[in-house]
């Protein structure tokens, strides 16, 4: 056997001995994730379902053609019989260049109603502008573009204003004429009709009183893409609040509908409106007894949450869940189950994204120190990298990491950036140049054991140059810790970086020496 053969056999053996580090992960998404994709569309608007009439199923479609790059949204509401709950079917309609339309169902959502108690969620303040909308003037002015929070509530508001106006003027046709809304009869949601709406005028509310369907073009409201980029979060957040706060209102609403024959949401009479108002008043009284803000404080680590209004609201939303569940919101006990867990997960996921993306330049991060602790054995935590972002302002690299487990290696694809990290590790100084990719396993070690490396310490700051005594830690980042490297190989890289790799691949048994 020649030397080349020996080298070749050794080469192949080492390839076989690769301890599974190059194994590719496989994407396996659950169906539920399909229903709640990462990017929310405008079609996630949820509306108060009107009172159901007979067993006919009617549809109401809100059409959004906000931007040519954005997907049009179609919200279809099916009016269910009285004994069943009205469910809003939210669909996303993706139109491509060829005119083909894909429909994607996001799931069944509970009808909602606006919360008029919380000023942040108060949408009635935009009533005047809603009137402006209904008068078919240019919809979005500059001030409203800036107002992210009030933007999305205008839709139900204007709709409600629309109801009230009709209620005052009584005949439906009259009200629509007064609102100067283009009338159209669409009996179905055929593709041609939708395509027609795409090219319709900016404000396009189409009514079909016979079918109880309404079609609103949202494109005039979301005119620029900058505004649209703010939509999904606010929409979801708002709807989340509305959903939770309006359950009892809806109860009363349905109770009222039981006595109302042939109730039409367009033809709301005074009794219905009074019932709604009464319900809102009751709701406000309930919230006065149980102020929602007192329920929002919980075990969320405030240090880990950047001070962002959106995030604050989000945390309130998430944390408000148990208390609201505790309240007897469902008087009849027959509401369909809302996937609140999924909503929580989505909200939390987006919250982490905000953590990573919007506030990467949080300068004052101090690693917690167990100063009183005597130096002991090494402490380390094993993580897997989910995402990597770089912040050039502080010359740092931010790793979104997750506690390592066997399941992570098998099922998750960390390149998709959809795995929710447990926290962030900030790499500064020389650590910035650490070569790591999503999916890599890392160890965060405290050599003396004085520093906390567990997830409770997030965000962990690693630096090599101690600017103060607080930064003079002994935290180490070890990439690919399962690959054991000899100190000899590391020290030899001082002279030649290639040599360590060559030795590991081809060995240094001396057979490569000329003396052999």
């Amino acid at each position, binding site marked *: 056997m020649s030397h080349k053969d020996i080298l070749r056999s050794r080469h192949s053996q080492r390839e076989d001995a690769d301890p599974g580090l190059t194994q590719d992960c496989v994407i396996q998404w659950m169906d539920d994730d399909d229903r709640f994709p990462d990017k929310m569309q405008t079609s996630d608007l949820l509306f108060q379902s009107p009172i159901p009439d007979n067993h006919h199923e009617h549809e109401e479609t809100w059409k959004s053609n906000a931007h040519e790059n954005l997907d049009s949204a179609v919200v279809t509401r099916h009016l269910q019989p009285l004994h069943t709950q009205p469910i809003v079917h939210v669909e996303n309609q993706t139109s491509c260049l060829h005119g083909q339309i894909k429909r994607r169902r996001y799931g069944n959502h509970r009808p909602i109603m606006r919360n008029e108690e919380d000023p942040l969620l108060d949408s009635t303040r935009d009533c005047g502008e809603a009137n402006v909308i209904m008068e078919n003037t240019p919809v979005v002015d500059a001030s409203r573009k800036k107002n992210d929070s009030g933007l999305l509530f205008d839709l139900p508001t204007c709709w409600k204003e629309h109801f009230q106006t009709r209620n005052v003027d009584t005949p439906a046709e009259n009200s629509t004429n007064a609102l100067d809304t283009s009338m159209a009869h669409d009996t179905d949601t055929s593709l041609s009709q939708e395509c027609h709406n795409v090219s319709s005028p900016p404000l396009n509310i189409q009514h079909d009183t016979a079918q109880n369907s309404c079609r609103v073009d949202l494109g005039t409201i979301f005119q620029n893409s900058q505004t649209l980029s703010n939509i999904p979060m606010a929409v979801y957040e708002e709807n989340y609040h509305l959903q939770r706060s309006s359950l009892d209102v809806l109860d009363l609403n349905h109770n009222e509908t039981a006595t109302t024959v042939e109730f039409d949401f367009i033809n709301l009479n005074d009794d219905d409106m009074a019932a709604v108002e009464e319900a809102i008043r009751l709701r406000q009284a309930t919230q006065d007894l149980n102020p929602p803000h007192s329920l929002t404080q919980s075990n969320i680590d405030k240090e880990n949450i950047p001070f962002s209004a959106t995030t604050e609201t989000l945390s309130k939303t998430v944390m408000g869940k148990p208390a609201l569940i505790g309240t007897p919101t469902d008087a009849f006990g027959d509401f369909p189950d809302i996937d609140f867990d999924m909503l929580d997960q989505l909200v939390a996921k987006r919250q982490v994204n905000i953590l990573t993306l919007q506030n990467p330049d949080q300068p004052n991060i101090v690693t917690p120190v167990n100063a009183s602790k005597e*130096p002991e054995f090494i402490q380390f935590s094993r993580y897997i990298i989910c995402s990597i972002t770089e912040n050039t302002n502080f010359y740092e690299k931010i790793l979104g990491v997750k506690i390592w487990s066997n399941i992570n290696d098998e099922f998750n694809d960390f390149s998709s950036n959809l795995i929710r990290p447990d926290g962030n590790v900030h790499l500064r100084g020389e650590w910035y140049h650490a070569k790591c990719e999503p999916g890599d396993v890392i160890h965060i070690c405290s050599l003396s054991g004085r520093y906390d490396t567990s997830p409770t310490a997030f965000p962990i700051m690693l630096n090599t140059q101690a600017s103060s005594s607080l930064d003079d830690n002994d935290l180490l980042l070890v990439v*690919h810790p399962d690959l*054991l*490297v000899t100190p000899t190989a*590391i020290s030899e890289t*001082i002279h030649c970086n290639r040599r360590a790799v060559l030795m590991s*691949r081809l060995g240094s*048994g*001396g057979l490569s020496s000329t*003396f052999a």
Partner: protein
Amino acid sequence: MFVLIAKSAMMGTLRHDLFERCLFHKDFSYAFAQTQCTSIIKNHAESLIALDMIDELQIYLDLMKTVPLLQRFSSEYTSFLQPSSDGARLATGSLIPGHGVQSSLHLLIDDVHATEESSVSHEVGLRGFVDATVVIRGRHKQPTIQAKRGGQPSSHALDHPKILVPIELKTGHNQNAQHAHMAQLALYTVMLRARYGSEDASRMGASGSGVLLYLNDQAQQAVHISPSHGEIKSLINQRNVVASEIRRSVKVRGVDIVNDGNRSQRYALFEARRHCGLCFEKI
């Protein structure tokens, strides 16, 4: 292990073995060294023959030249040789100067923990063999990283029961401390601290510093190395680089042409070509 290297390196290996055996048995006498030299030469017989070093007697004599230096080492830095009349030196040991601005150390070896200790640290992803791990008593002020930075040793340093100090033995001709050797020793200290814990008042722990011992047939020199946090971080960072490169090199290539996007990021060759001329990796 069957190793074929240069003649000078072969002699260094023999000296290395002799030192370890004497230190392990705590016996630096001539009689013990003679038996060990014979045994060592027999163990390396294949390599010696391959290197055309067939004069066994000459090798034996060359190897025995090291014994006075070993005895000097034991008398200066250890307490388990025959009792010395110099009581003061026994109390404090001999001073080992630190490299550069690093602190010096009064080293007095009380015991030998292990030689050629196979040390594996899964926490920091290191493995290797520490030439010698010796035990010093806590009555000697052990300058640690914290003590150095704080300006004064910790108050309970005198009460330390046992402190493990790694010794890296270099048997080459060059007696000057090299950065590569210091880096290697610094990583050994990290591994020992990961394995035995940092030095503590209540139990045995590993020191944050080590001793770099240069020993050939003519002279010996000891240097005290106490790496700082920043140096350890840089070395671990370098370890991450090596690990990433090794992992990348292990990936199967050549089967399918895939542009992995990182091909252009290979290291440039070392600028001083003379180092490449001295490289053992002739492939």
